[in-house]
């Protein structure tokens, strides 16, 4: 077992990591107002008088945001609290119009759950591991402050103010940057399967607060720091590594870790203290008196459960079992919901039982399609080839119309033109031929032109068989069925 350890001057240190992930809920309108939750609008356009905290404005929760959070909780195998409520977190900042954030502290919507991460030898994760989820709650996002548009002023844009977030709090169960990375990838995968968050960390729809402490193996938990708002998996891993090493240095120099909020600076790859925010730590949480306790009916909860899609772990098991996919293929295809969806559309479009075509389809998807998308720098959602076209191509291979080589050729043309494979085959005459007469004719010509090589072959130089295959295929412009060519050549050469 290769555990992640920091080698200090005084011995080995273990790192203890917990993550609080803020995931933006997919919804049309905001959590407590009817303003649009979409990105990219003009400043202060997607803002209602409620989001701007005008006097006398009141919040009314959006059912879809609650539904999304409940479904997410179910996908994490977590307890759904039938009775929860909203609390106010009080602090002053220019991006927080109410002077408080409506969140859930005392009675969150979702309780304990768990996420399974896979073994990953290369990353030093020796065995699959269960990471505990402490809770999931729903809260409002803040607005945005712009600092670089005026020399002495900051500008406030409230478009994000009031957008629904899920805060998903893990237990301090991770022990290495790699485990944290695997946890985040798995969490993002689950959120995208559920459809409750698009998981786009670059656009800020998923950010992590990283709690890190270090201890000598077997010791009590150390004091932790919280690094706020890290917005990529790579940065989370780097922030953990940097912060853990900093803590070890401090402790080994005889210092103490201060429980504080820190900020990750990706340019310098280090965390630094945010002392400016320290006095704001007394948040004076109390139940929001503008809202009533949120009581979920059994019908509501049952409807959420019924809407829950097949999740990545279950899908992966099914692909390995029912579809007979190799473990690697099943893992790759189920890691992302869009890939899995594409794959299922591909299989369905073949019109054949999934158990029959699944393996070939998964091989083609992983090698040919992924290869092409990689080259083009595109996501599977932007694939120039549709699942239906892919299925048609697989069908042409299966019925012998196309050889593997021809199929690759046709696929390249599909990528370029967007045309259906059958049309390409038809127009460009790329059909594989099993016409024995035509092939025999070509073989006879080649043997006549290479009488010396025929002699050598017949004299025992078996390796020349490949030469005859190549010549025949070349003369047939690659369209001859290789199996038929083989058979006929063997017969002709004797």
């Amino acid at each position, binding site marked *: 077992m290769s555990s992640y350890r920091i080698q200090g001057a005084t011995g080995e240190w273990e790192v203890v990591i917990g993550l609080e992930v803020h995931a933006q809920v997919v*919804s*049309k*309108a905001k959590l407590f*107002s*009817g*303003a*649009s939750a979409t990105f990219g609008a*003009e*400043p*202060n*356009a*997607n*803002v*209602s*008088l*409620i989001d*701007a905290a005008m006097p006398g404005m009141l919040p*009314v*929760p*959006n*059912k*879809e*945001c*609650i539904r999304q959070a409940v479904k997410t909780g179910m996908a994490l195998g977590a307890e759904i609290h039938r009775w929860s*409520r909203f609390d106010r977190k009080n602090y*002053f900042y*220019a991006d927080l119009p109410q002077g408080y954030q409506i969140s859930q502290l005392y009675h969150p919507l979702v309780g304990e759950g768990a996420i399974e991460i896979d073994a990953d030898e290369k990353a030093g994760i020796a065995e699959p591991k269960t990471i505990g989820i402490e809770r999931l709650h729903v809260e409002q996002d803040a607005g945005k*402050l*712009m*600092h670089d*548009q*005026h*020399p*002495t*002023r*900051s*500008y*406030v*844009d*409230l478009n994000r103010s009031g957008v629904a977030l899920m805060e998903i709090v893990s237990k301090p169960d991770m022990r290495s940057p790699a485990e944290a990375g695997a946890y985040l990838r798995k969490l993002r995968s689950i959120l995208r399967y559920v459809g409750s968050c698009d998981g786009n960390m670059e656009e800020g729809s998923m950010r992590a607060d990283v709690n890190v402490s270090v201890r000598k193996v077997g010791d009590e938990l150390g004091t932790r720091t919280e690094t706020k708002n890290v917005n990529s998996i790579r940065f989370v891993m780097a922030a953990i590594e940097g912060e853990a090493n900093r803590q070890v240095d401090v402790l080994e120099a005889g210092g103490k870790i201060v429980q504080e909020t820190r900020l990750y600076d990706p340019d310098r790859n280090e965390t630094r203290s945010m002392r*400016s925010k320290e*006095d704001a730590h*007394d948040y*004076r949480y109390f*139940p929001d008196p503008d*809202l*009533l*306790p*949120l*009581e979920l009916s059994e019908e509501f909860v049952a409807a959420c459960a019924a809407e829950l899609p097949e999740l990545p772990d279950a899908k992966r098991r099914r692909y390995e079992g029912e579809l007979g996919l190799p473990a690697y293929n099943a893992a790759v295809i189920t890691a992302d919901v869009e890939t899995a969806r594409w794959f299922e559309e591909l299989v369905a479009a073949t019109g054949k039982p999934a158990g029959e075509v699944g393996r070939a389809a998964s091989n083609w998807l992983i090698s040919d399609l992924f290869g092409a998308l990689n080259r083009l720098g595109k996501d599977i959602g932007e694939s120039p080839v549709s699942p239906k076209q892919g299925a048609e191509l697989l069908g042409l291979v299966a019925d012998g119309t196309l050889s593997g080589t021809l199929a690759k050729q046709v696929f390249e043309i599909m990528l370029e033109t967007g045309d259906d494979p059958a049309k390409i085959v038809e127009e460009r005459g790329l059909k594989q031929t099993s016409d024995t007469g035509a092939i025999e004719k070509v073989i006879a010509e080649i043997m006549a032109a290479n009488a010396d090589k025929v002699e050598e072959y017949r004299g025992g130089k078996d390796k020349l068989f490949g030469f005859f295959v190549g010549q025949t295929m070349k003369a047939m412009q690659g369209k001859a069925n290789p199996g038929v060519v083989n058979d006929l050549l063997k017969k002709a050469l004797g």
Partner: protein
Amino acid sequence: MSVDAATVRKIASLARIAVTDGDVEAMVPELNNILGWIEQLGEVNTDGVAPLAAVIPNHQRLREDVVTDGNIRDKVLANAPQAEHGFFAVPKVIE
């Protein structure tokens, strides 16, 4: 529990209300007087009593997920002490 000048300053700072020394001096006895009186609640036996959650029994209603609001920037900014280029403007914040 009673408050001293330092506590009053701390509360005032949490509440973002600037106070002078004179304010603080006046507030200490005033707040202590009120807090001392409030503390008679300690006499009430509340063992096993759940804190009141809703005054009149009522259920939280939920809105449908429909965009019904927004695109009212003029109304949002109408009363702003300082608004520029569609934003509220505040003194520069250094983060």
